[in-house]
């Protein structure tokens, strides 16, 4: 070992060394609920977090742990905890950090389920949220209240593709003594490592680019280990006595990994959002090729942007790598390899043209996912974001004609031909409108 392994190597290896007994090169699937204890003392030690190890798959699992350690390694975090989905990661992280009466400052331009959770579900438990345009740094700072426990947002907003200035928002959070938690699903650690810019916690939907194959749902919460939970009295269940384990103080006992220790002891233990070992295995297979796929995603996205921007049927195109995007310069600075492989666009024939296009393409799949190796299209206003209010849609930058495109890895000429076919089918609406 001459130095720390690089990203591509970690994508293939991190978290796993072949065991001496079997030598399995691939990560074994430990499809088990439970683990035989050596004796009663060993069992008690595991429950009491005296030692690392596994006691029940709801809490942790060897296959899932490989995935967690790989995600932590790629993000440069101190630890990661995998969950059954990205929403499980987010909701559990929020409940581990927040209590009744607490407040969150959040980006207003996010995935519909993220907004729903904060706007409609958490208020039932006494946790409220102020939604702010992620580019409004002054608004974010002013929205912080004495009971605010975090700032939350997406680096690349879904589906509006608004860019959050991680470094600037991180400084606002640090000044207020609260963590910055980011949903980094759209950027992946290949495009951006937000801990290096001051983010403190990261949630991922591993279902998307990190898994990449569209075969397994999963999520993760990554702990940057760079937030001082004891700097103020805002987090008494981390930096004060907790009900578990004789009043354990996670901050004093686990230091930089205090949040993860609590997430494991309370979030996984009480809420049980565990990822199945088989799904962890599937996601790991995807992670092995993450750098290769991301490069291809970026290459095809660049070609697609050129194609769409020059096409007569297209009314508008939005992507942070386009010069007219309000976050263009910021995206270039934060993510020089590219600002993700989601493009949103509208056709000149409006919503009807978009619907016809989506129903006419054959290679691109019409479904509710992004980040798959295959090209995907959807109409967010009637699907992924249909459960949020009309006001939230406007606030989130969603228009009725918006098509969300997740650029895949196919030969670009084939995607282009498929889109040309869709545009031809939608052309009748363009003519009607004209």
């Amino acid at each position: 070992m001459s130095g720390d392994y690089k990203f591509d190597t970690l994508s293939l290896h991190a978290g796993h060394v072949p065991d001496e007994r079997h030598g399995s090169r691939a990560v074994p699937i430990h499809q088990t609920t439970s683990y035989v204890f050596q004796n009663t003392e060993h069992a008690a030690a595991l429950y009491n977090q005296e030692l690392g190890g596994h006691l029940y798959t709801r809490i942790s699992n060897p296959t899932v742990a490989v995935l967690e350690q790989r995600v932590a390694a790629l993000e440069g975090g101190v630890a990661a905890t995998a969950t059954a989905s990205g929403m499980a990661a987010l909701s559990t992280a929020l409940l581990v950090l927040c209590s009744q009466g607490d407040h969150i400052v959040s980006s207003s331009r996010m995935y519909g389920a993220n907004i729903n959770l904060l706007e409609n579900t958490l208020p039932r438990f006494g946790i409220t949220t102020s939604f702010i345009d992620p580019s409004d740094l002054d608004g974010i700072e002013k929205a912080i209240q004495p009971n605010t426990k975090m700032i939350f947002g997406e680096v690349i907003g879904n589906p509006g593709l608004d860019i959050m200035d991680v470094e600037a928002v991180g400084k606002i959070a640090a000044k207020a003594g609260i963590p910055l938690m980011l949903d980094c699903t759209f950027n992946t650690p290949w495009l951006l490592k937000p801990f290096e810019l001051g983010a403190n916690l990261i949630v991922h939907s591993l279902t998307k680019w990190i898994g990449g194959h569209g075969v397994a749902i999963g999520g993760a919460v990554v702990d940057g280990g760079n937030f001082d939970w004891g700097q103020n009295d805002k987090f008494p269940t981390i930096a004060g006595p907790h009900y578990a384990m004789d009043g354990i103080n996670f901050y004093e006992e686990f230091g930089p990994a205090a949040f993860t220790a609590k997430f494991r002891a309370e979030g996984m233990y009480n809420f049980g959002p565990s990822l199945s070992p088989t799904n962890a295995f599937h996601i790991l297979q995807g992670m092995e090729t993450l750098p290769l796929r991301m490069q291809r995603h970026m290459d095809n996205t660049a070609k697609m942007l050129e194609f769409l921007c020059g096409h007569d049927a297209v009314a508008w195109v939005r992507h942070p790598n386009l010069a007219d995007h309000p976050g263009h310069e910021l995206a270039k600075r934060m993510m020089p390899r590219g600002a993700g492989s989601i493009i949103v666009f509208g056709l000149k024939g409006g919503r009807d043209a978009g619907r016809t296009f989506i129903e006419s393409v054959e290679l691109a799949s019409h479904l509710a996912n992004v980040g798959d190796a295959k090209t995907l299209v959807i109409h967010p206003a009637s699907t992924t974001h249909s459960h949020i209010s009309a006001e939230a849609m406007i606030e989130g930058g969603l228009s009725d004609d918006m098509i969300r495109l997740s650029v895949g890895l196919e030969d670009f000429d084939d995607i282009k031909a498929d889109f040309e076919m869709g545009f031809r089918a939608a052309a009748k609406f363009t003519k009607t409108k004209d």
Partner: protein
Amino acid sequence: MKHQLLDTQIHIATGGRSFANDGEALVLLHGSGQNHLTWVLQSRYFAYRGFQVLAPDFPGHGLSGGMPLDSIEDMADWVIALLDSLDVKTACLVGHSQGCLVAIDAAARYPERVSRLGLIAGALAIPVNDQLLTMSDKALSKAISVMTSWGHGPMAHMHDNTQPGHSFLGYGNRLMASNHANALRHDLTACNNYSGGKAAAAKITQPVLCILAASDRMTPVKFGTAMADSLINSERVIMTGAGHMLPAERPAEVNDALRRFLAR
């Protein structure tokens, strides 16, 4: 627990149990640029097995206030002052790396207070190269990164951790960054300047357990073996495939070895 020692409020990890001054204390001494979190998988483990665990943050480290101490001898005196302040008569000192130098120095000069020693990834001298010393002063984050990298063995570099989901390197970097900005420079300078290890070892008659790592790049095993050879009442365990950060890299094996030793 918070504790006032001399004019400084310090933090002492007690493994999640209240410290009851009941016989021999088990004092865990961290290494250069580290703090009580070196012992995250030892302090709780031994506290819940009836040991009176004290894992202090030296001044300027972890959650302790004050400025870092300047010499190994000062650190040894500080440990004895800590025992005095808690009315602890005798203690088993378990050191890691720099903590071994402190433990050896204290055992030689205060034999009536130190009942036995556990020396993990240690040596009788820990010279520090000029480049690292300069880095610790002028480019702290780089020094931390280099030490975290050197300090961990091959399994740790693969992030293969007994604690589910944890990254050795990520955790190691953040742990060191949480100390006072001068802590690492003071520690490395203290190690580099300490020349009393050999003479101190010659005076030590207490039982000693040396736990060494075959892949240790910070205090290579040959120096650990020489340390064990110079201690007349010592035994050694060498763990293959592990690096310098043995307490984290091989917690179960370290705990087992220490426990057998302490059971005598």
